């Protein structure tokens, strides 16, 4: 059963320079225990998608259309008080910078017990026990003692674990993680990825992992959605998308990553740069950078099309149909 279904989500920012359609018609669904990798470069709208699900978009941004169905309930229509009851309870978020989650002047135990009791009428003792078990789940040694520490007494990796533990406190059905390991060292990143993998498997929590790093997604996610200029341009099973990318942008993105071809060989690069979101080209937003674009791409925006299995593509000239890479 799907935990989350996002239908035609639109989040726009009303700036002086014009309306920026940061998220412009995003659809996806997520099942229990499933890990979705939401991939894209800066400005592609991946983080705004995550923030929209939790209704955390600040003005001048606003969710202007679409549905966010969480267990059948449309979050976009929910009153603020109801939303607050879900946030941190059934839906949790992990941010890139753990200091965004943690209050620097409160001890960890204060913050964790508060998070438990905000949603659950339990004794402080029971809340504390739950905090200890959450901390030990994310691999913090001697959690009972560490509860008395302040955030600054933790290293960067440990802080991110505490932030993840807080997200887990109330046994959420859905966690949205926004680049949670980007600022961490590789050894710490892999420790956290290992723990998250186990958690998703053991607890059945659905996870949206937002990242710019396709290599992280490769090892973690069941399905991947590639975003470009506010839209999902390709989704599918992680292995399918990574081995036979169908959208020229996915092809370019994969070719840009060093370390899977020959050492020292030229990387296939995507020419140009990400478009200005306030002035998107008519037609396909990727057309100006695409090696495969023709007249039609420059005038008509392609719709999303279902391919074999669970594959979806937004391209007039998908590459997998033709059965090969360029």
């Amino acid at each position, binding site marked *: 059963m799907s935990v989350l279904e996002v239908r035609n989500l639109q989040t726009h920012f009303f700036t002086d320079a014009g309306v920026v359609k940061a998220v412009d018609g995003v659809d996806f669904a997520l099942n229990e225990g499933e890990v979705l990798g939401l991939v894209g*470069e*800066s400005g592609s709208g991946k983080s705004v998608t995550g923030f929209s699900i939790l209704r955390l978009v600040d003005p001048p941004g606003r969710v202007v259309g679409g549905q966010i169905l969480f267990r059948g309930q449309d979050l976009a229509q929910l009153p603020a008080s109801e939303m607050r009851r879900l946030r941190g309870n059934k839906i949790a978020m992990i941010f890139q910078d753990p200091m965004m989650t943690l209050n620097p002047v409160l001890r960890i135990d204060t913050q964790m017990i508060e998070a438990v009791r905000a949603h659950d009428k339990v004794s402080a003792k029971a809340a504390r026990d739950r905090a200890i078990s959450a901390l030990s789940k994310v691999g913090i040694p001697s959690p009972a003692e560490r509860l008395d520490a302040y955030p600054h007494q933790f*290293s960067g*990796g*440990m802080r991110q674990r505490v932030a993840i533990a807080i997200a887990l406190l109330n046994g959420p059905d859905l966690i949205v993680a926004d680049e949670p390991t980007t600022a961490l*060292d*590789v*050894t*710490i*990143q*892999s*420790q956290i*990825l*290992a723990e998250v*993998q186990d958690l998703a498997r053991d607890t059945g929590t659905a996870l949206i992992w937002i990242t*710019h*790093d*396709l*290599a*992280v997604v*490769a*090892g*973690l996610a069941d399905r991947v959605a590639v975003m470009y200029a506010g839209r999902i341009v390709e989704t599918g099973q*992680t*292995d399918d998308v*990574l*081995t036979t990318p169908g959208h020229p942008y996915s092809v*370019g*993105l*994969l*070719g*840009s*990553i*060093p*370390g*899977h071809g020959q*050492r*020292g060989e*030229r*990387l*296939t*690069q*995507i020419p140009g*740069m*990400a478009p200005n979101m306030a002035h998107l080209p008519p037609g396909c937003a990727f057309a100006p950078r695409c090696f495969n674009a023709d007249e039609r791409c420059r005038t008509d925006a392609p719709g999303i099309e279902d391919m074999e299995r669970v594959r979806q593509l937004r391209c007039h000239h998908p590459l997998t149909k033709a059965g090969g890479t360029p």
Partner: protein
Amino acid sequence: MTAMLELSDVSRQFVKKLDSIEKLAKKLGASVSESCVNAVDSASFHIARGEVVGLVGESGCGKSTLGRMVAGLLPVSGGTIRFEGVDVTDAASADAKTARLRIQMIFQDPMSSLNPRMKVEEIVGEAAVYHGLTTRREMSAYVAGILRQVGLDPAYAQRFPHQFSGGQRQRIGIARALAVRPEFLICDESIAALDVSIQAQVINLFQDLRRELDLTYLFISHDLSVVEHIADRVVVMYLGRIVEIASTEALFDDPQHPYTQALIDQVPRLGAGRQTYRTIKGEIPSPLAPPPGCHFHPRCPMAGPRCTRDTPVLRNDAGRSVACHLHDGGTE
């Protein structure tokens, strides 16, 4: 092989001096003392002309400090740095000043390393005019040539840094470094802040420039896959010490030091399918109080009693160097 750059036993300490109250407390018998961090501890290696050497390690391992010492931006606390056989350790010496022009650095954040009030033409041309590589009158043409070299439209020369995207700004930083005709470039996390597709463009640019201008690089990065792609040889640092030096093939195919093995194991890779992440325990210890003996022993799966006691030395064996007791008589 003649070394272009040679470091022998280069060290750098950062000492936190006692303030007046702490000094007073010490006089009164309190146990306070100056805290000292060995950011770089007796680093020795060389770089041959035309070579690209990658310097990798996690945050706080001293790789940036080492790069800054080579660039002459930080004085060394001990050891010598030789560039083309000339001692450039003393940053104030005349030799060091001429060498420094031939060694240029490209920084991580192109925004904080470019003066926001200067036009691109001035940013790129200023040093070249000062050092007499061009005249103020011919600066425009000179800068245009350099901009073309890094793939920027010379028409942009009259713009300010904020009018560019991150990737373009990094190109301006590269143009500024190239403007004084350097032979040696130090790239300190130069592509870490860029998007993947822009990263690929800049990596390709580095490789084109290497070929066209016969450049030598010290490429500092925490990203092992980038280093694997671009470097000929790799130096691995941990907590201020060099733990392994090897050619890129040897290092990635057959890492010798347990730390290097762990690092390479944990790089997420495409095409590996769903990975189960194997992890090394714990985190980097505080450099203020590094563990005795081998700094890596508290996290090392192979550590023995000797590792907590003796500091392993970097031993050269058949072209590759490892600082580990496993390769030097055992850990007992």
